[in-house]
């Protein structure tokens, strides 16, 4: 290795460390600020304080918004798993005409500009009197989590040897029995990962929810936005830390269930 190559390698490494630091810095600072005892947006100088978490609990709005998010996310996830799983199973087991176009259908919600999706969904849901309702937000979240459940469960089905299903079928098992007794138990880690993806995407979703909810169905991220507009204090960093904590748990559990890899539903 020449001196030039060594220099090039070192520059590349340090550049990458900086990029990673850039990725992590704001999150770490938000966590730090949330534990500072003053009402300013500063990192704690000495003593740590939980007062902003108390504020989060006592100030009207946040508790309700959190409960609402925890109500919407599992509902959206349940439907998303059923729809995404069913489609993914079909894709992995049957020959499909124009399968490229069909699978692009499922990933499209991730590549269309969010505000355009929000505006379009607002118009449609309004026709059914579903804007400014929890049901409307749930429907929007199902659409936006479908790429994740479809992708994750698709990978799970692809990794499952058909021989199990074929053996069961040749022994006389029906489709329903094969699904319930063979397929679903074998892809349990995939289902868990898909559910976690879907839950966290729903809990984090902002733009489309903003349009569809008309700012009357206030989910947790929307409540943080309201708080930022209303007047800034470290409460919003405490709320952000709660969201970061939920993401961290999801990331750890997904890594344990199926392992994180170089893929994302939006990156084909």
């Amino acid at each position, binding site marked *: 290795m020449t001196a*030039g190559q060594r220099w090039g390698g070192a520059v590349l490494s340090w*550049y*990458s460390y900086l*990029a990673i630091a*850039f*990725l992590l*810095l*704001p*999150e770490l*600072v*938000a966590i730090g600020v949330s534990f500072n005892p003053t009402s*300013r*947006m*500063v990192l704690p100088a000495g003593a740590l304080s939980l007062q902003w978490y108390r504020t989060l609990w006592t100030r009207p709005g946040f508790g309700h918004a959190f409960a609402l998010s925890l109500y919407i996310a599992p509902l959206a996830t349940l439907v998303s798993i059923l*729809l*995404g799983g069913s*489609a993914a199973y*079909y894709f992995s087991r*049957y020959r499909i005409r124009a399968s490229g176009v069909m699978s692009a*259908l*499922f990933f499209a*919600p991730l590549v*269309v*500009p*969010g*505000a*355009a999706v929000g*505006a379009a*969904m*607002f*118009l*449609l849901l*309004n*026709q059914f009197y579903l804007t400014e309702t929890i049901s409307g937000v749930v429907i*929007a979240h199902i*659409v936006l989590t479908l790429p994740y459940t*479809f992708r994750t469960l698709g990978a799970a089905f692809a990794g499952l040897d058909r*021989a199990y299903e074929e053996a069961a079928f*040749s022994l006389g098992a029906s*489709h329903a029995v094969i699904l319930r007794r063979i397929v679903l138990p074998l892809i349990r880690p995939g289902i868990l990962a898909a559910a976690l993806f879907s839950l966290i995407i729903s809990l*984090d979703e*902002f*733009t489309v929810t*903003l*349009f569809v909810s008309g700012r009357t169905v206030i989910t947790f991220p929307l409540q943080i*936005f309201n708080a*930022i507009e209303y007047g*800034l204090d470290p409460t919003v*960093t405490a*709320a*952000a*830390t709660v969201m970061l904590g939920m*993401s961290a748990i999801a*990331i750890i559990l997904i890594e344990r269930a199926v392992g*994180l890899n*170089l*893929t*994302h539903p*939006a*990156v084909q």
Partner: protein
Amino acid sequence: MPRTTATPALSGATRLFRAPAARYLTVPVGFLLIFFFLPLILIVLVSFTSSFPSASITLTTSNYVQFFGSSLYRAYLLTTIVYGLEVTVLCLLMGYPLAYYMVRQRGLVYQITLLAVIAPLLVGVVPRTVGWIAVLGTEGVINNILLGLHLSRRPLTLLYNPTAAVVGLAHVLLPFMVLSIASVLSLIDRSLREAAQNLGAGELQIFRRITIPLSLHGVAVGCALVFSLAIGSYITPVVLGGGKMKLLAPLAYDQFLNYPNWPFGSAVGVVLLVTGLVFVVGLPALVVMRRQAAGAS
């Protein structure tokens, strides 16, 4: 249930997966058609009406005439495109070297880098935007460092301007760029590199003549994705930009929910949609065309 005697597993299997069990697909596809594609058709339709909802629908191009006829709204479009491009370029400048570094690591370093890139995809845009407020504020980390090192006498105004909005959104979208490029880089055959080395090519030459051309498709996909997501973003540019930037996403929101003019809001949405689509479809297609042209010559 009828059974065949010879190779039961095989014949069973062919029957198991041969029946077009359309029920698995009908409901999910139907759901997407109704709640994702129908809205997109509806917004295009509404953008060509003068009032909606209304009893009678007459088609008109007046919303687009109003949009493109006004220098104010043209400025919204231009600002949005420039904003999207700035975010995309920043992501590319940070993302390409990071992706290049990542795919060349093995073992623990690779795992850690991968985690650092993937994990932010599962972190919401709201907490990340809050983080930037804390980093860039007058009492934020950057100002503290500048004051501490006596590089500045007064705290700088780093927040609530377009630069903060570009940096903040590039932070949110960087993982998409890294993944798009890394997934292509990791597919490049290592033997190409060895062959080039045997023929006496240096690192730089290998990078310029092999790595870049073969990763161009990933770059195009990453840029298209980041651009499309950037122009559709709401909270990051609105909060970090201080609400002063003339962008289509907040404009659409205002037209729908603040002073309702749904037809015009729909036209704004469609302009956003088409702008995104031009990049999402156009950029990767451009690379493919280039490759075909290169192959033909």
